[in-house]
Protein backbone atom coordinates (compact mmCIF):
# COMPACT_ATOMS: atom_id res chain seq x y z
CA UNK A 1 0.00 0.00 0.00
CA UNK A 2 0.91 3.62 0.13
CA UNK A 3 2.07 3.91 3.66
CA UNK A 4 5.08 1.58 3.95
CA UNK A 5 6.47 3.35 0.95
CA UNK A 6 6.19 6.65 2.72
CA UNK A 7 7.75 5.38 5.89
CA UNK A 8 10.73 4.27 3.92
CA UNK A 9 11.26 7.72 2.55
CA UNK A 10 11.06 9.47 5.82
CA UNK A 11 13.36 6.89 7.34
CA UNK A 12 16.20 8.02 5.05
CA UNK A 13 15.78 11.56 6.30
CA UNK A 14 15.68 10.60 9.88
CA UNK A 15 19.42 9.97 9.85
CA UNK A 16 20.34 13.61 9.35
CA UNK A 17 18.10 15.11 11.91
CA UNK A 18 20.12 14.89 15.14
CA UNK A 19 22.99 16.99 13.78
CA UNK A 20 20.59 19.59 12.52
CA UNK A 21 18.82 19.54 15.83
CA UNK A 22 21.87 20.65 17.73
CA UNK A 23 22.26 23.41 15.25
CA UNK A 24 18.68 24.66 15.52
CA UNK A 25 18.81 24.48 19.26
CA UNK A 26 21.72 26.88 19.41
CA UNK A 27 20.09 29.25 16.94
CA UNK A 28 16.87 29.12 18.93
CA UNK A 29 18.71 30.11 22.07
CA UNK A 30 20.55 32.96 20.37
CA UNK A 31 17.40 34.31 18.77
CA UNK A 32 15.55 34.15 22.05
CA UNK A 33 18.32 36.14 23.71
CA UNK A 34 18.09 38.66 20.91
CA UNK A 35 14.34 39.04 21.35
CA UNK A 36 14.94 39.50 25.03
CA UNK A 37 17.48 42.25 24.39
CA UNK A 38 14.98 44.07 22.21
CA UNK A 39 12.37 43.77 24.91
CA UNK A 40 14.86 45.24 27.29
CA UNK A 41 15.27 48.39 25.20
CA UNK A 42 12.08 49.75 26.73
CA UNK A 43 13.34 49.10 30.20
CA UNK A 44 16.66 50.77 29.58
CA UNK A 45 14.90 53.70 27.93
CA UNK A 46 12.72 54.25 30.96
CA UNK A 47 15.73 53.99 33.23
CA UNK A 48 17.73 56.42 31.11
CA UNK A 49 14.90 58.92 30.86
CA UNK A 50 14.28 58.80 34.58
CA UNK A 51 17.98 58.99 35.29
CA UNK A 52 18.67 61.97 33.04
CA UNK A 53 15.66 63.98 34.09
CA UNK A 54 16.36 63.38 37.75
CA UNK A 55 20.11 63.96 37.53
CA UNK A 56 19.55 67.24 35.77
CA UNK A 57 16.53 68.31 37.72
CA UNK A 58 16.95 67.36 41.33
CA UNK A 59 19.95 69.56 42.15
CA UNK A 60 17.88 72.63 41.35
CA UNK A 61 15.08 71.44 43.60
CA UNK A 62 17.52 71.28 46.50
CA UNK A 63 19.22 74.54 45.63
CA UNK A 64 15.90 76.32 45.50
CA UNK A 65 14.50 74.34 48.40
CA UNK A 66 11.80 71.75 47.93
CA UNK A 67 9.12 73.75 49.67
CA UNK A 68 10.00 77.04 47.98
CA UNK A 69 10.07 75.29 44.64
CA UNK A 70 6.78 73.46 44.95
CA UNK A 71 4.80 75.97 46.98
CA UNK A 72 6.32 79.21 45.75
CA UNK A 73 3.76 81.26 43.88
CA UNK A 74 6.11 83.38 41.79
CA UNK A 75 8.05 82.30 38.74
CA UNK A 76 10.69 84.78 37.73
CA UNK A 77 13.75 83.20 36.19
CA UNK A 78 15.56 86.53 35.82
CA UNK A 79 15.26 87.20 39.50
CA UNK A 80 16.07 83.59 40.22
CA UNK A 81 12.72 83.10 41.91
CA UNK A 82 11.33 79.72 41.06
CA UNK A 83 7.94 78.94 42.52
CA UNK A 84 6.10 76.20 40.69
CA UNK A 85 2.71 76.41 42.36
CA UNK A 86 1.03 78.40 39.57
CA UNK A 87 2.07 75.79 37.03
CA UNK A 88 1.13 72.85 39.22
CA UNK A 89 -2.29 74.37 39.83
CA UNK A 90 -2.52 75.34 36.18
CA UNK A 91 -1.93 71.77 35.09
CA UNK A 92 -4.31 70.37 37.67
CA UNK A 93 -7.11 72.82 36.89
CA UNK A 94 -6.71 72.30 33.17
CA UNK A 95 -6.82 68.55 33.62
CA UNK A 96 -9.80 68.68 35.95
CA UNK A 97 -11.66 70.85 33.49
CA UNK A 98 -10.79 68.57 30.61
CA UNK A 99 -12.09 65.61 32.59
CA UNK A 100 -15.27 67.45 33.40
CA UNK A 101 -15.87 68.07 29.73
CA UNK A 102 -14.39 64.95 28.22
CA UNK A 103 -15.58 62.18 30.51
CA UNK A 104 -19.36 62.54 30.24
CA UNK A 105 -19.23 63.01 26.50
CA UNK A 106 -16.65 60.27 26.10
CA UNK A 107 -18.35 57.65 28.24
CA UNK A 108 -21.76 58.32 26.75
CA UNK A 109 -20.34 58.15 23.25
CA UNK A 110 -18.74 54.85 24.14
CA UNK A 111 -22.07 53.56 25.43
CA UNK A 112 -23.62 54.76 22.22
CA UNK A 113 -21.11 52.95 20.04
CA UNK A 114 -21.08 49.76 22.05
CA UNK A 115 -24.75 49.45 22.87
CA UNK A 116 -27.16 51.72 21.12
CA UNK A 117 -26.03 52.73 17.69
CA UNK A 118 -27.23 50.82 14.67
CA UNK A 119 -24.49 49.27 12.58
CA UNK A 120 -24.36 52.05 10.00
CA UNK A 121 -23.98 54.75 12.64
CA UNK A 122 -21.19 52.85 14.33
CA UNK A 123 -19.46 52.82 11.00
CA UNK A 124 -19.68 56.60 11.02
CA UNK A 125 -18.88 57.35 14.64
CA UNK A 126 -15.97 55.00 15.11
CA UNK A 127 -13.83 56.39 12.30
CA UNK A 128 -14.67 59.85 13.60
CA UNK A 129 -13.22 58.86 16.96
CA UNK A 130 -10.16 57.37 15.30
CA UNK A 131 -9.68 60.59 13.38
CA UNK A 132 -9.97 62.59 16.54
CA UNK A 133 -7.11 60.50 17.91
CA UNK A 134 -5.10 60.98 14.75
CA UNK A 135 -5.30 64.75 14.44
CA UNK A 136 -1.92 66.20 15.47
CA UNK A 137 -2.06 68.17 18.69
CA UNK A 138 -0.72 71.31 17.07
CA UNK A 139 -3.84 71.40 14.91
CA UNK A 140 -5.98 71.33 18.04
CA UNK A 141 -3.90 74.25 19.27
CA UNK A 142 -4.36 76.08 16.03
CA UNK A 143 -8.09 75.44 16.02
CA UNK A 144 -8.31 76.53 19.63
CA UNK A 145 -6.41 79.73 18.90
CA UNK A 146 -8.44 80.84 15.93
CA UNK A 147 -11.87 79.53 16.93
CA UNK A 148 -12.25 78.88 20.63
CA UNK A 149 -10.12 81.74 21.99
CA UNK A 150 -11.87 84.54 20.05
CA UNK A 151 -15.22 82.93 20.83
CA UNK A 152 -14.53 83.04 24.55
CA UNK A 153 -13.21 86.59 24.37
CA UNK A 154 -16.31 87.68 22.54
CA UNK A 155 -18.96 85.83 24.52
CA UNK A 156 -17.48 85.81 27.99
CA UNK A 157 -14.98 88.64 27.95
CA UNK A 158 -11.41 88.47 29.17
CA UNK A 159 -8.49 87.76 26.95
CA UNK A 160 -9.82 84.49 25.54
CA UNK A 161 -6.49 82.80 26.11
CA UNK A 162 -7.66 81.17 29.26
CA UNK A 163 -8.13 78.18 31.48
CA UNK A 164 -11.50 77.65 29.85
CA UNK A 165 -10.04 77.49 26.36
CA UNK A 166 -7.47 74.96 27.55
CA UNK A 167 -10.13 72.85 29.24
CA UNK A 168 -12.26 72.76 26.13
CA UNK A 169 -9.43 71.81 23.80
CA UNK A 170 -7.98 69.24 26.20
CA UNK A 171 -11.47 67.91 26.81
CA UNK A 172 -11.76 67.27 23.08
CA UNK A 173 -8.26 65.84 22.88
CA UNK A 174 -8.87 63.21 25.56
CA UNK A 175 -12.15 62.08 24.02
CA UNK A 176 -10.69 59.38 21.80
CA UNK A 177 -8.70 57.84 24.65
CA UNK A 178 -11.73 57.71 26.89
CA UNK A 179 -14.09 56.55 24.19
CA UNK A 180 -11.99 53.74 22.84
CA UNK A 181 -11.03 52.31 26.20
CA UNK A 182 -14.52 52.65 27.65
CA UNK A 183 -15.97 51.10 24.54
CA UNK A 184 -13.68 48.10 24.76
CA UNK A 185 -14.48 47.59 28.39
CA UNK A 186 -18.20 47.94 27.80
CA UNK A 187 -17.94 45.40 25.03
CA UNK A 188 -16.11 42.97 27.24
CA UNK A 189 -18.86 43.03 29.84
CA UNK A 190 -20.17 39.47 29.52
CA UNK A 191 -23.23 39.25 27.35
CA UNK A 192 -24.76 37.20 30.14
CA UNK A 193 -25.13 40.24 32.39
CA UNK A 194 -27.08 42.08 29.79
CA UNK A 195 -29.24 39.07 28.99
CA UNK A 196 -29.84 38.51 32.67
CA UNK A 197 -31.08 42.04 33.23
CA UNK A 198 -33.20 42.10 30.11
CA UNK A 199 -34.74 38.77 30.94
CA UNK A 200 -35.89 40.26 34.24
CA UNK A 201 -37.78 42.86 32.30
CA UNK A 202 -35.36 45.76 32.65
CA UNK A 203 -35.34 48.18 29.74
CA UNK A 204 -32.21 48.53 27.63
CA UNK A 205 -31.27 51.93 29.01
CA UNK A 206 -31.85 50.78 32.56
CA UNK A 207 -29.69 47.72 31.86
CA UNK A 208 -26.91 49.96 30.58
CA UNK A 209 -26.85 52.18 33.62
CA UNK A 210 -27.53 49.63 36.33
CA UNK A 211 -25.58 46.63 35.10
CA UNK A 212 -23.31 47.30 32.15
CA UNK A 213 -21.60 50.53 33.21
CA UNK A 214 -21.01 49.32 36.79
CA UNK A 215 -19.52 46.11 35.42
CA UNK A 216 -17.27 48.08 33.07
CA UNK A 217 -16.29 50.49 35.81
CA UNK A 218 -12.67 49.56 36.13
CA UNK A 219 -12.08 49.75 32.38
CA UNK A 220 -13.77 53.12 32.20
CA UNK A 221 -11.70 54.37 35.12
CA UNK A 222 -8.57 53.19 33.38
CA UNK A 223 -9.64 55.17 30.32
CA UNK A 224 -10.14 58.25 32.44
CA UNK A 225 -6.74 57.90 34.09
CA UNK A 226 -5.12 57.57 30.67
CA UNK A 227 -7.05 60.63 29.60
CA UNK A 228 -5.69 62.52 32.60
CA UNK A 229 -2.21 61.48 31.54
CA UNK A 230 -2.76 62.81 28.08
CA UNK A 231 -4.20 66.08 29.37
CA UNK A 232 -1.38 66.68 31.83
CA UNK A 233 1.23 65.90 29.21
CA UNK A 234 -0.08 67.99 26.35
CA UNK A 235 2.23 70.86 25.48
CA UNK A 236 2.09 72.59 22.14
CA UNK A 237 -1.67 72.94 21.88
CA UNK A 238 -1.75 74.34 25.39
CA UNK A 239 0.98 76.91 24.76
CA UNK A 240 -0.96 78.33 21.87
CA UNK A 241 -4.15 78.93 23.82
CA UNK A 242 -3.37 79.24 27.51
CA UNK A 243 -1.90 82.72 27.58
CA UNK A 244 1.02 81.30 29.54
CA UNK A 245 0.82 83.71 32.45
CA UNK A 246 2.50 82.14 35.46
CA UNK A 247 -0.27 82.98 37.87
CA UNK A 248 -2.56 80.97 40.07
CA UNK A 249 -5.80 80.91 38.10
CA UNK A 250 -8.61 82.65 39.97
CA UNK A 251 -11.24 82.29 37.27
CA UNK A 252 -11.71 80.14 34.21
CA UNK A 253 -11.32 83.22 32.06
CA UNK A 254 -7.83 83.94 33.35
CA UNK A 255 -4.73 82.78 31.53
CA UNK A 256 -2.77 79.89 32.98
CA UNK A 257 0.57 78.24 32.44
CA UNK A 258 0.93 74.49 32.69
CA UNK A 259 3.99 72.51 33.76
CA UNK A 260 4.59 71.38 30.21
CA UNK A 261 4.26 74.87 28.78
CA UNK A 262 6.65 76.14 31.41
CA UNK A 263 9.29 73.76 30.14
CA UNK A 264 8.69 74.33 26.47
CA UNK A 265 8.54 78.11 26.68
CA UNK A 266 11.87 78.62 28.37
CA UNK A 267 13.88 75.55 27.38
CA UNK A 268 15.51 77.36 24.50
CA UNK A 269 17.44 79.98 26.37
CA UNK A 270 17.49 79.10 30.02
CA UNK A 271 20.91 78.35 31.40
CA UNK A 272 22.42 77.66 34.76
CA UNK A 273 19.94 77.46 37.59
CA UNK A 274 17.06 78.57 35.38
CA UNK A 275 17.67 75.63 33.08
CA UNK A 276 17.99 73.25 35.98
CA UNK A 277 14.73 74.61 37.31
CA UNK A 278 13.08 73.60 34.05
CA UNK A 279 14.44 70.09 34.34
CA UNK A 280 13.15 70.18 37.88
CA UNK A 281 9.76 71.08 36.44
CA UNK A 282 10.22 67.98 34.31
CA UNK A 283 10.87 65.99 37.47
CA UNK A 284 7.62 67.18 39.02
CA UNK A 285 5.72 66.39 35.83
CA UNK A 286 7.40 63.02 35.74
CA UNK A 287 6.36 62.28 39.28
CA UNK A 288 2.77 63.17 38.44
CA UNK A 289 2.84 60.81 35.49
CA UNK A 290 4.42 58.02 37.47
CA UNK A 291 1.74 58.33 40.12
CA UNK A 292 -0.87 58.09 37.40
CA UNK A 293 0.90 55.04 35.97
CA UNK A 294 0.83 53.35 39.31
CA UNK A 295 -2.83 54.15 39.80
CA UNK A 296 -3.50 52.77 36.35
CA UNK A 297 -1.57 49.64 37.16
CA UNK A 298 -3.55 49.09 40.31
CA UNK A 299 -6.83 49.59 38.47
CA UNK A 300 -6.01 47.26 35.63
CA UNK A 301 -4.66 44.63 37.97
CA UNK A 302 -7.75 44.79 40.06
CA UNK A 303 -9.78 44.44 36.90
CA UNK A 304 -7.74 41.38 36.01
CA UNK A 305 -8.64 39.60 39.23
Amino acid at each position, binding site marked *: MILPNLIHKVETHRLEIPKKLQHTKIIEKIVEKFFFL*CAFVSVSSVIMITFFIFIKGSPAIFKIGILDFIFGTQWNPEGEIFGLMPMILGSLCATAGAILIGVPIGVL*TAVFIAELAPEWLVRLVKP*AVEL*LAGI*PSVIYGFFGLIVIVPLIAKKLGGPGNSLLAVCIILGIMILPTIISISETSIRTVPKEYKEGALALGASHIKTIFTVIIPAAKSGITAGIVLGIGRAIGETMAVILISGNAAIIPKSVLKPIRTLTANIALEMGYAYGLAQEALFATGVILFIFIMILNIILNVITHRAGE
Partner: protein
Amino acid sequence: MIWAAAFITVGVVAWILLYVVINGIGKINWDFLTTAPQGFGGGGIYPMIIATCYIVILTLLIAPPIGICSAIYLVEYAKSGKIVRVIRFATESLSGIPSIVFGLFGYLFFVTQLEWKYSLLSGAMTLSIMVLPTMIRTTEEALKSVPVSYREGSLGLGASKLRTIMKVVLPCALPGILSAVILSIGRIVGETAAVYFTVGFAPRMARSIMDSSRTLSVHMYVLTKEGDFANAFATATVLIIIVLTMNFIANLIGKKLNKSRI
Protein backbone atom coordinates in the same frame (compact mmCIF):
# COMPACT_ATOMS: atom_id res chain seq x y z
CA MET B 1 -28.61 62.38 26.07
CA ILE B 2 -26.46 59.53 24.85
CA TRP B 3 -27.27 60.42 21.29
CA ALA B 4 -26.30 63.99 22.04
CA ALA B 5 -22.89 62.92 23.32
CA ALA B 6 -22.19 60.90 20.22
CA PHE B 7 -23.45 63.76 18.13
CA ILE B 8 -21.07 66.17 19.87
CA THR B 9 -18.16 63.85 19.24
CA VAL B 10 -18.89 63.53 15.56
CA GLY B 11 -19.74 67.20 15.32
CA VAL B 12 -16.44 68.29 16.82
CA VAL B 13 -14.46 66.13 14.41
CA ALA B 14 -16.40 67.41 11.46
CA TRP B 15 -16.10 71.00 12.64
CA ILE B 16 -12.34 70.90 13.12
CA LEU B 17 -11.63 69.06 9.91
CA LEU B 18 -13.98 71.02 7.70
CA TYR B 19 -12.99 74.36 9.17
CA VAL B 20 -9.32 73.72 8.62
CA VAL B 21 -9.58 72.04 5.25
CA ILE B 22 -12.01 74.52 3.73
CA ASN B 23 -9.78 77.39 4.73
CA GLY B 24 -6.61 75.65 3.74
CA ILE B 25 -7.26 73.69 0.61
CA GLY B 26 -7.30 76.76 -1.63
CA LYS B 27 -3.74 77.65 -0.86
CA ILE B 28 -2.33 74.24 -1.63
CA ASN B 29 -0.88 73.97 -5.07
CA TRP B 30 2.18 72.54 -6.71
CA ASP B 31 4.32 75.55 -5.83
CA PHE B 32 3.33 75.40 -2.19
CA LEU B 33 4.41 71.79 -1.99
CA THR B 34 7.66 72.15 -3.90
CA THR B 35 9.24 75.43 -2.90
CA ALA B 36 11.10 76.54 0.18
CA PRO B 37 9.57 79.03 2.58
CA GLN B 38 10.16 82.73 1.96
CA GLY B 39 11.68 84.80 4.70
CA PHE B 40 11.21 83.04 7.96
CA GLY B 41 7.68 81.75 7.73
CA GLY B 42 5.42 81.77 4.70
CA GLY B 43 6.01 80.41 1.26
CA GLY B 44 6.22 76.74 0.43
CA ILE B 45 6.72 73.74 2.62
CA TYR B 46 9.04 71.59 0.53
CA PRO B 47 11.89 71.34 3.06
CA MET B 48 9.38 70.46 5.76
CA ILE B 49 7.91 67.67 3.70
CA ILE B 50 11.39 66.30 3.11
CA ALA B 51 12.32 66.63 6.78
CA THR B 52 9.11 64.88 7.78
CA CYS B 53 9.87 62.05 5.35
CA TYR B 54 13.38 61.72 6.75
CA ILE B 55 12.09 61.52 10.28
CA VAL B 56 9.42 58.99 9.40
CA ILE B 57 11.82 56.76 7.51
CA LEU B 58 14.54 56.94 10.15
CA THR B 59 12.10 56.21 12.93
CA LEU B 60 10.60 53.32 11.03
CA LEU B 61 14.05 51.87 10.57
CA ILE B 62 14.57 51.86 14.31
CA ALA B 63 11.30 51.39 16.18
CA PRO B 64 9.37 48.61 14.40
CA PRO B 65 12.14 46.00 14.39
CA ILE B 66 12.80 46.53 18.08
CA GLY B 67 9.10 46.75 18.85
CA ILE B 68 8.22 43.58 16.96
CA CYS B 69 11.04 41.60 18.52
CA SER B 70 10.04 42.85 21.97
CA ALA B 71 6.46 41.85 21.37
CA ILE B 72 7.53 38.41 20.18
CA TYR B 73 9.54 38.00 23.33
CA LEU B 74 6.68 39.10 25.54
CA VAL B 75 4.02 37.01 23.87
CA GLU B 76 5.87 33.91 22.81
CA TYR B 77 8.78 33.48 25.16
CA ALA B 78 8.36 35.32 28.40
CA LYS B 79 7.16 33.30 31.33
CA SER B 80 5.10 35.52 33.56
CA GLY B 81 7.90 36.23 35.97
CA LYS B 82 9.57 39.25 37.41
CA ILE B 83 11.34 40.19 34.20
CA VAL B 84 8.14 40.33 32.24
CA ARG B 85 6.50 42.40 34.88
CA VAL B 86 9.42 44.79 34.71
CA ILE B 87 9.24 44.99 30.93
CA ARG B 88 5.47 45.42 31.00
CA PHE B 89 5.75 48.14 33.58
CA ALA B 90 8.46 49.82 31.52
CA THR B 91 6.42 49.85 28.33
CA GLU B 92 3.36 51.04 30.19
CA SER B 93 5.33 53.82 31.84
CA LEU B 94 6.92 54.73 28.56
CA SER B 95 3.54 55.07 26.91
CA GLY B 96 2.40 57.34 29.71
CA ILE B 97 5.32 59.75 29.52
CA PRO B 98 4.31 63.02 27.88
CA SER B 99 6.08 63.95 24.68
CA ILE B 100 7.58 67.05 26.23
CA VAL B 101 9.51 64.82 28.62
CA PHE B 102 10.75 62.81 25.66
CA GLY B 103 11.77 66.12 24.16
CA LEU B 104 13.68 67.05 27.31
CA PHE B 105 15.36 63.68 27.40
CA GLY B 106 16.21 63.79 23.70
CA TYR B 107 17.67 67.24 24.19
CA LEU B 108 19.72 66.16 27.19
CA PHE B 109 20.90 62.87 25.80
CA PHE B 110 21.07 62.93 22.03
CA VAL B 111 21.49 66.65 21.41
CA THR B 112 23.88 67.52 24.24
CA GLN B 113 25.33 64.36 25.73
CA LEU B 114 26.03 62.55 22.47
CA GLU B 115 26.66 65.90 20.75
CA TRP B 116 24.42 65.07 17.83
CA LYS B 117 23.21 68.68 18.01
CA TYR B 118 19.75 69.53 16.77
CA SER B 119 19.48 66.94 14.05
CA LEU B 120 17.10 64.62 12.28
CA LEU B 121 18.91 61.72 13.89
CA SER B 122 18.41 63.06 17.41
CA GLY B 123 14.74 63.49 16.59
CA ALA B 124 14.33 60.06 15.07
CA MET B 125 15.97 58.38 18.04
CA THR B 126 13.73 60.26 20.45
CA LEU B 127 10.62 59.46 18.44
CA SER B 128 11.65 55.82 18.18
CA ILE B 129 11.61 55.49 21.94
CA MET B 130 8.36 57.36 21.98
CA VAL B 131 6.48 55.11 19.54
CA LEU B 132 8.06 51.94 20.89
CA PRO B 133 5.33 51.21 23.44
CA THR B 134 2.57 51.58 20.85
CA MET B 135 4.52 49.36 18.49
CA ILE B 136 4.99 46.74 21.18
CA ARG B 137 1.43 46.91 22.43
CA THR B 138 -0.21 46.64 19.02
CA THR B 139 2.14 43.93 17.83
CA GLU B 140 1.42 42.04 21.02
CA GLU B 141 -2.28 42.33 20.30
CA ALA B 142 -1.72 41.11 16.77
CA LEU B 143 0.33 38.15 17.98
CA LYS B 144 -2.17 37.30 20.67
CA SER B 145 -5.00 37.35 18.20
CA VAL B 146 -3.32 34.55 16.27
CA PRO B 147 -5.27 31.52 17.48
CA VAL B 148 -3.40 29.24 19.87
CA SER B 149 -4.59 26.41 17.70
CA TYR B 150 -2.18 27.49 14.95
CA ARG B 151 0.72 27.30 17.35
CA GLU B 152 -0.47 23.97 18.68
CA GLY B 153 -0.88 22.70 15.15
CA SER B 154 2.65 23.64 14.21
CA LEU B 155 4.26 22.47 17.42
CA GLY B 156 2.24 19.27 17.24
CA LEU B 157 3.92 18.53 13.92
CA GLY B 158 7.31 18.76 15.57
CA ALA B 159 8.18 22.27 14.40
CA SER B 160 10.50 24.21 16.68
CA LYS B 161 9.26 27.28 18.45
CA LEU B 162 11.20 29.69 16.27
CA ARG B 163 9.93 28.03 13.13
CA THR B 164 6.39 28.16 14.44
CA ILE B 165 6.76 31.88 15.11
CA MET B 166 8.39 32.71 11.81
CA LYS B 167 6.31 30.53 9.51
CA VAL B 168 2.89 30.55 11.11
CA VAL B 169 2.47 33.17 13.80
CA LEU B 170 4.18 36.18 12.24
CA PRO B 171 2.57 35.82 8.80
CA CYS B 172 -0.82 35.72 10.48
CA ALA B 173 -0.03 38.74 12.62
CA LEU B 174 1.44 40.71 9.74
CA PRO B 175 -1.61 42.78 8.82
CA GLY B 176 -2.04 43.77 12.45
CA ILE B 177 1.61 44.73 12.71
CA LEU B 178 1.42 46.66 9.49
CA SER B 179 -1.50 48.72 10.64
CA ALA B 180 0.38 49.41 13.87
CA VAL B 181 3.30 50.71 11.84
CA ILE B 182 1.06 52.90 9.76
CA LEU B 183 -0.67 54.30 12.79
CA SER B 184 2.67 55.18 14.31
CA ILE B 185 3.57 57.01 11.11
CA GLY B 186 0.58 59.19 11.88
CA ARG B 187 1.91 59.73 15.36
CA ILE B 188 5.38 60.61 14.12
CA VAL B 189 4.07 63.05 11.55
CA GLY B 190 1.88 64.74 14.12
CA GLU B 191 4.40 65.02 16.92
CA THR B 192 5.58 68.52 17.77
CA ALA B 193 6.97 68.91 21.25
CA ALA B 194 9.55 66.13 21.13
CA VAL B 195 10.69 67.15 17.66
CA TYR B 196 10.95 70.81 18.52
CA PHE B 197 13.64 70.14 21.09
CA THR B 198 15.60 67.56 19.18
CA VAL B 199 15.42 68.45 15.51
CA GLY B 200 15.18 72.19 16.04
CA PHE B 201 13.24 74.34 13.67
CA ALA B 202 15.59 75.61 10.96
CA PRO B 203 13.32 76.14 7.95
CA ARG B 204 15.90 74.78 5.54
CA MET B 205 16.44 71.72 3.48
CA ALA B 206 18.33 69.09 5.43
CA ARG B 207 21.41 67.82 3.65
CA SER B 208 22.09 64.91 5.92
CA ILE B 209 20.56 63.25 8.91
CA MET B 210 22.90 65.24 11.13
CA ASP B 211 21.30 68.50 9.98
CA SER B 212 18.71 70.44 11.82
CA SER B 213 15.49 70.98 9.92
CA ARG B 214 11.82 71.58 10.54
CA THR B 215 9.04 69.02 10.27
CA LEU B 216 5.57 69.86 9.04
CA SER B 217 4.01 69.95 12.46
CA VAL B 218 6.77 72.11 13.92
CA HIS B 219 6.33 74.39 10.93
CA MET B 220 2.65 74.43 11.66
CA TYR B 221 3.39 75.41 15.25
CA VAL B 222 5.74 78.20 14.25
CA LEU B 223 3.30 79.56 11.67
CA THR B 224 0.47 79.56 14.19
CA LYS B 225 2.60 81.28 16.75
CA GLU B 226 3.70 83.92 14.29
CA GLY B 227 0.16 84.48 13.15
CA ASP B 228 0.70 83.45 9.55
CA PHE B 229 -2.74 81.87 9.49
CA ALA B 230 -3.08 81.52 5.75
CA ASN B 231 -0.06 79.27 5.54
CA ALA B 232 -1.00 77.59 8.80
CA PHE B 233 -4.35 76.57 7.33
CA ALA B 234 -2.66 75.16 4.27
CA THR B 235 -0.04 73.30 6.27
CA ALA B 236 -2.70 71.99 8.63
CA THR B 237 -4.63 70.73 5.64
CA VAL B 238 -1.58 68.89 4.36
CA LEU B 239 -1.08 67.35 7.80
CA ILE B 240 -4.70 66.32 8.01
CA ILE B 241 -4.58 64.75 4.59
CA ILE B 242 -1.53 62.74 5.59
CA VAL B 243 -3.12 61.58 8.82
CA LEU B 244 -6.40 60.76 7.09
CA THR B 245 -4.58 58.73 4.49
CA MET B 246 -2.69 56.83 7.15
CA ASN B 247 -5.90 56.10 9.07
CA PHE B 248 -7.58 55.02 5.88
CA ILE B 249 -4.79 52.65 4.92
CA ALA B 250 -4.64 51.21 8.42
CA ASN B 251 -8.39 50.64 8.35
CA LEU B 252 -8.16 49.03 4.96
CA ILE B 253 -5.58 46.61 6.24
CA GLY B 254 -7.70 45.99 9.30
CA LYS B 255 -10.65 45.11 7.08
CA LYS B 256 -8.55 42.76 4.98
CA LEU B 257 -7.45 41.16 8.19
CA ASN B 258 -11.01 40.59 9.34
CA LYS B 259 -11.98 39.11 6.02
CA SER B 260 -9.12 36.66 5.95
CA ARG B 261 -10.03 35.55 9.46
CA ILE B 262 -13.52 34.51 8.46
